[in-house]
C-alpha cells in the first residue's frame, strides 16, 4: 500500500524533457504553477493545461502513473469540491432545496479547483519523474546559492533533501512492516473511531522514529568514512550545462506565461 506512492520517484529516460538542465526545469515548473493559478477564468488556465500536456507527451511517461499518484488524493479533492458547491451561493441557481443551493458559480469554482490541483500534481510529478533526485537537489543548491552570502546553509539543505528522497521508500516499507507486526499483535487499525486510530498510530511511530535515528547515526558514520566534509573541495559527477534546448524551452515557457498573464488581465 504505502509502497505504491511514487512521490519523488525517478523514471530514467532519454528524451527532451529528461535531458533538460534541472535548474531550467525547476524554474519552468514554478512558472507553470503560477500560470495555473493566474486569473479567474478558464481561458488563462487553459494555457497551463496545454503546456502540461505538451510536456507530458514529450516526456513519454505513461499517464497511468499519474493516475496512481492522484488516487490517494481523491477524497481531499472531492471534499474541496463539495465545500465550494455548498458555500458559494452566487450566480444562476440550478437547483435549490432548503438551505442548499446549487449555483453556477459554485460548480464552476469546484471544477476549476479540481482541475488546478490535478494539474499542479501532474506538473510537479513530471519534474521528479524526469529528474534524478541528485540532479534535482544539485539544481536547488545551485539556484539557492546566492543565499550563501546570507549564511544560509545551502549545501546542507540540499544534502538533507537528497537523504530525505533516498529514505522515503525505505521508511515507507518499514512503516508497512511495523503496521503488519502491530496488527499481528492485535492492534486495531480498522476501527473507524478517530480516537482509536490515533492511539493505534503511537506504537507505529515510536519504533519508526527509533529506527530512523539509528539509521541517521549509521549513515553519518558511513558518510564520514567516504570522506564527506560538507561542500569543501567537492565536485559533481553530473555537471550542469545549459544548452540551446534549455534556453529555447525556457523562452517558450516565458512566452506562454506572459500570454496567460495577458489573457488573465484582459478577460
Amino acid at each position, binding site marked *: 500500500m504505502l509502497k505504491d506512492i511514487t512521490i*519523488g*520517484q*525517478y523514471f*530514467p529516460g532519454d528524451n527532451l524533457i529528461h535531458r533538460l538542465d534541472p535548474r531550467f526545469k525547476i524554474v519552468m515548473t514554478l512558472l507553470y504553477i503560477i500560470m495555473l493559478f493566474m486569473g479567474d477564468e478558464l481561458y488563462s488556465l487553459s494555457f497551463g493545461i496545454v503546456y502540461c500536456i505538451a510536456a507530458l507527451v514529450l516526456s513519454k511517461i505513461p499517464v497511468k502513473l499519474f493516475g496512481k499518484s492522484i488516487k490517494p488524493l481523491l477524497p481531499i479533492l472531492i471534499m474541496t469540491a463539495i465545500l465550494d458547491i455548498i458555500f458559494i451561493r452566487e450566480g444562476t441557481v440550478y437547483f435549490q432545496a432548503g438551505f442548499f443551493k446549487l449555483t453556477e458559480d459554485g460548480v464552476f469554482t469546484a471544477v476549476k479547483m479540481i482541475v488546478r490541483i490535478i494539474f499542479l500534481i501532474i506538473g510537479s510529478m513530471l519534474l521528479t519523474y524526469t529528474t*534524478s*533526485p*541528485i540532479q534535482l537537489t544539485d539544481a536547488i543548491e545551485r539556484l539557492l546559492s546566492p543565499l550563501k552570502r546570507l549564511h544560509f546553509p545551502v549545501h546542507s539543505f540540499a544534502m538533507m533533501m*537528497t*537523504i530525505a*528522497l*533516498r529514505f522515503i*521508500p*525505505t521508511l515507507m*516499507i518499514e512503516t508497512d512492516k511495523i503496521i503488519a507486526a502491530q496488527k499481528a499483535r492485535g492492534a486495531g487499525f480498522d476501527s473507524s473511531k478517530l480516537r482509536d486510530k490515533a492511539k493505534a498510530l503511537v506504537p507505529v511511530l515510536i519504533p519508526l522514529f527509533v529506527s530512523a535515528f*539509528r*539509521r541517521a547515526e*549509521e*549513515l553519518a*558514520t*558511513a*558518510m*564520514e*568514512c*567516504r*570522506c*564527506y*566534509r560538507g561542500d569543501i*573541495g*567537492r*565536485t*559533481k*559527477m*553530473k*555537471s550542469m550545462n545549459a544548452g540551446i534546448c534549455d534556453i529555447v524551452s525556457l523562452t517558450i515557457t516565458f512566452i506562454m506565461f506572459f500570454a496567460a498573464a495577458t489573457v488573465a488581465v484582459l478577460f
Partner: protein
Amino acid sequence: MSVQLIAENLCFYYTDEDGNRLSGDVLKNISLKIEKGSFVAILGHNGSGKSTLARLFNGILVPISGKVLVNGIDTSDDDNIYEVRRHVGMVFQNPDNQIVAAIVEDDVAFGPENLGISPKEIRVRVDNALRAVDMYDYRLHAPSQLSGGQKQKVAIAGIIAMRPDCIILDEPTAMLDPKGRNDVINTIHMLHREYGLTVVLITHYMDEAAEAERVIVMDNGEIIMDDTPEKVFTKPEVLQAVGLDVPQSTELLWKLNMSGIPVPINAINEEDCVDTVINLFT
C-alpha cells in the same frame, strides 16, 4: 611486502565529549600488522571489540593510547584524516544505512565527489566500480528496488570507486540471505585477487573466515589467536572457550576424533574434509 595497517600498543575505551568514560576497556594493548594485499578475517563474539578496531583503522575513532598507522600515516593527526579514509574504505553491516543517494550510480559517485575528482574521471570510476561488482546494469535503479546482497555490492562499489588500497568490511553479510552472502563474499574475493586490495573481513561466519589467508581471533579486547585458518580452526577447544564455532567440516572431523576415530583435523573447507573422510576408507 609493505605494511598497510599497523596498531601499536593500542588501547581504547569510549568517552563522551567531555572525556568521561562510557565503557570499560574495549581494546587492551593491541599490537598488529596487516600486510598490503593480504586477506585477513577477524573473529570474536559480540562485544569483543571488532567493530571498534575497524573504526580505529580508518580514523573514525582515535586511540586513547598507542598508535594506529595507515600506510605509515598516523590516524590521530587531524590533518591526515581524509588521506587515511581515502586509503581505507569501510563497508558496514546494514547496506540500507550506507547508501546516500536515491539512484545507484549517484551513490557510487558520492565518495569520488567528496575527493574532488574531475567529473569525467568520476564517471569512469563509477562505471568501472559498478562493472567490478557486476551491478552495471542496475546503475539507474533506486536502492529500494534492489535485494540486500545487491545493495551491499553497491555499497562496496561506492568504496572501490574511491580507489582505496584497503577495504574493511564489518559483518557485510550478517543481514543477507545465503544467496546474497555468497554473491558478496565472491565479490570480495574477486576484488582481492584482481585488484590486489587488502581485505579485512569481520565476520561471524566461520566458513567465510576459513577462506581468508589469516585469521585473527579477538576476545574481550585482546587478540588471542592470529594465524592461518588451518592452524586456528584445528584448535576447536580454544575457539569454543571464547564462544565461537568452527567451520562445519572441521567440526565433523573433530567429532569423529571425539568418538574414537582418529582422523587428522586439517580440513577447513568441504573439499579437504571430503578427501580426509575418503582417506579413512581407503
